[in-house]
């Protein structure tokens, strides 16, 4: 049935009876349909993100989303906020500049594992070290989807990718452990199956000051699942459901993910540490005293 036929077949007045979709206001509906494949997990995460924003009561005019390149990099283009689709791997330093120049903004980095951890890996660890107040949401689908399913720094050992046709033999990064080691104050992992928990976690991260990191294990039916003969999007959701073990506070060094192995999910890290700007203000005030004019660049520019 075509879309037109479906509309024609619908009982009269149904459209008026349907309550508005609460996340629609967060989306650029004029840009639909999106580019993501049927069964892809990214859309699910955008839904969770939108609901978390709704619940957060943040002023949406003060929320900016920054993405890099790749399938997840396209999130910025679909959210109805100030949004920046930057270069490959550089969403975090762009977000760093934006947040420090205008600390009133809530700056969310929304990108994929290849973008954030491979080409952008250096920026990731340094932003965590500095504890810059940006909210990093990382979709980990174990592969480079946009370019056709190549080896990622997250591809599990033995998994097939287009550039490891005989199986991956590199040890992948354990993202949660990397984030914690580098200094992130909030680290959580969920899968696209855990929509409620994920929404809750994103809400927590939005309220938390400092460098927060949420890894979302997601499916890529077109490339990762198909190439590894592990089914479609739904099969992967079933795997996520069966293989996930909730362990809040788990030691991050023990949460690495093997090929189709168990996935430890939960909130692993939630600590307090002064942010980059807190420390800068403190040190500058100590040294410069009354000569220190404060860190809010943007106020000056507006003046």
């Amino acid at each position: 049935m075509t879309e037109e036929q479906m509309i024609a077949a619908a009982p009269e007045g149904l459209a008026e009876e349907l309550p508005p979709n609460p996340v629609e206001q967060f989306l650029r509906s004029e840009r639909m349909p999106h580019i993501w494949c049927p069964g892809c997990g990214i859309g699910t995460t955008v839904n969770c993100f939108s609901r978390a924003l709704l619940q957060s009561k943040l002023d949406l005019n003060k929320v900016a989303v920054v993405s890099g390149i790749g399938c997840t990099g396209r999130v910025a283009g679909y959210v109805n906020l100030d949004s920046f689709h930057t270069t490959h791997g550089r969403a975090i330093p762009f977000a760093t500049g934006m947040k420090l120049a205008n600390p009133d903004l809530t700056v969310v980095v929304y990108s994929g594992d290849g973008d954030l951890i491979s080409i952008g890996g250096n920026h990731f660890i340094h932003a965590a070290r500095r504890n810059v107040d940006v909210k990093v949401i990382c979709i980990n689908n174990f592969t480079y989807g946009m370019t056709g399913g190549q080896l990622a720094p997250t591809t599990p050992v033995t998994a097939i990718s287009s550039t490891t046709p005989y199986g991956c033999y590199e040890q992948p990064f354990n993202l949660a452990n990397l984030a914690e080691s580098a200094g992130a104050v909030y680290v959580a992992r969920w899968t696209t199956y855990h929509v409620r928990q994920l929404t809750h976690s994103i809400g927590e991260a939005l309220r938390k000051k400092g460098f927060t990191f949420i890894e979302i294990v997601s499916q890529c039916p077109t490339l990762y699942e198909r190439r590894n003969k592990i089914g479609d999007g739904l099969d992967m959701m079933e795997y996520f459901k069966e293989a996930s073990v909730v362990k809040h506070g788990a030691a991050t060094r023990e949460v690495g993910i093997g090929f189709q192995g168990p996935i430890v999910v939960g909130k692993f890290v939630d600590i307090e540490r002064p942010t980059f700007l807190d420390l800068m203000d403190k040190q500058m005030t100590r040294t410069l005293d009354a000569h220190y004019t404060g860190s809010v660049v943007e106020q000056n520019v507006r003046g």
Partner: protein
Amino acid sequence: MKRTHADPAGVLTGTHFLDGDQACCEGALASGCRFAAGYPITPSTEIVERFAQRVPQIGGMFLQMEDELAASIALQGAVWAGAKSFTVTSGPGFSLMMEHIGYAAMTETPCVFVNVQRGGPSTGLPTLPAQADMMQARWGSHGDYQIIALCPNSPQECFDLTVHAFNLSEQYRVPVLVMMDECVGHMTEKVVIPPAEKIEVYPRRYTTLPPNEYQAFKAEDDLVPQFARAGEGYHFHVTGLTHDEHGYPSMNVETQHRLVTRLIDKIRRNADAMARNEEYRLDDADVVVIAYGITARVAMRAVQMAREQGVRAGLLRPMVVWPFPEKRLRELAARNGFAGLVVAELNCGQVFYEVERLVAGRVPVLLEPHTGGTVHRPEQILDAILKCSAPRPAGTPALQEVSR
């Protein structure tokens, strides 16, 4: 667009004894730049060292990033948050920044990149001068685009042209490159910083439209769109992908053609309006030396020596090298009895090729190259002037062929 004057908080009015790097920093501060992101590299580091010392006392910050890739995009994040922002680097760092110069050109992000040029390729001569990044400045990022590049030849001009660079970046919404060289960066001279009210500052082109009428990349009559910053309710989108007037990705031939043509035309069409040349003894010159940055100071002496020998030499020194002052060059080359042009630069031929292209064989163009590490001797440039001015019997090969 009305011009305003500088915020006095950033202007160190007075007469100073500064090197070019320090003067460049003062130029940025006088322009209202309150955010810099950088990564240390000789011979540019002194610019941000001074910035890091000065700016916390006037409401801004220096952010030392983990590498040049990060620095060159962090500054753009700051711009979209409302700051005026720049970064400084030299050869190897400049190479790493190329992708983000292209991003700034594509997203029409007003910002300034300073390159204190040193000898290359690769690590080359970290502490010694060259002017061998001029073509990289023009074309170094992938794809078709136009930038503006300025070349100061003194600490005073490092101040003046850095202010000018920020103004041009705001006016045209384009990355502007201040192409210094190690000599100019490290030479110390008198620098006069005027009172704030004498320093013109081109304000950001903030939109006056309400959010529902605003289109982030819809150009005005001069081909430049109005700017919105994050946090003001415009909910706009910025992407390095080919985009339509809303800023939304639109990958098709028509959008690509419209966008890229506009990005190029907004600069090219204004090449003559932007031109800023120093002209020395051009009135009756029939040999003209073209030189920029430190080399122009040597060339000035060579022109004087030629005049002492009765040769009618002159100097054309573009301060805005890209876009090149085409009109002025063509006027000179079209003079009756014009003997030729000498291009002296600290490279093996970069601006030379642009000059050669522009005069298209109508007059001889002689390159006086130098691989860098020091500057030319005036005698070298003088020799080229004399060669150029010497009468040539019919049938002699063109001078540019002889010179290589």
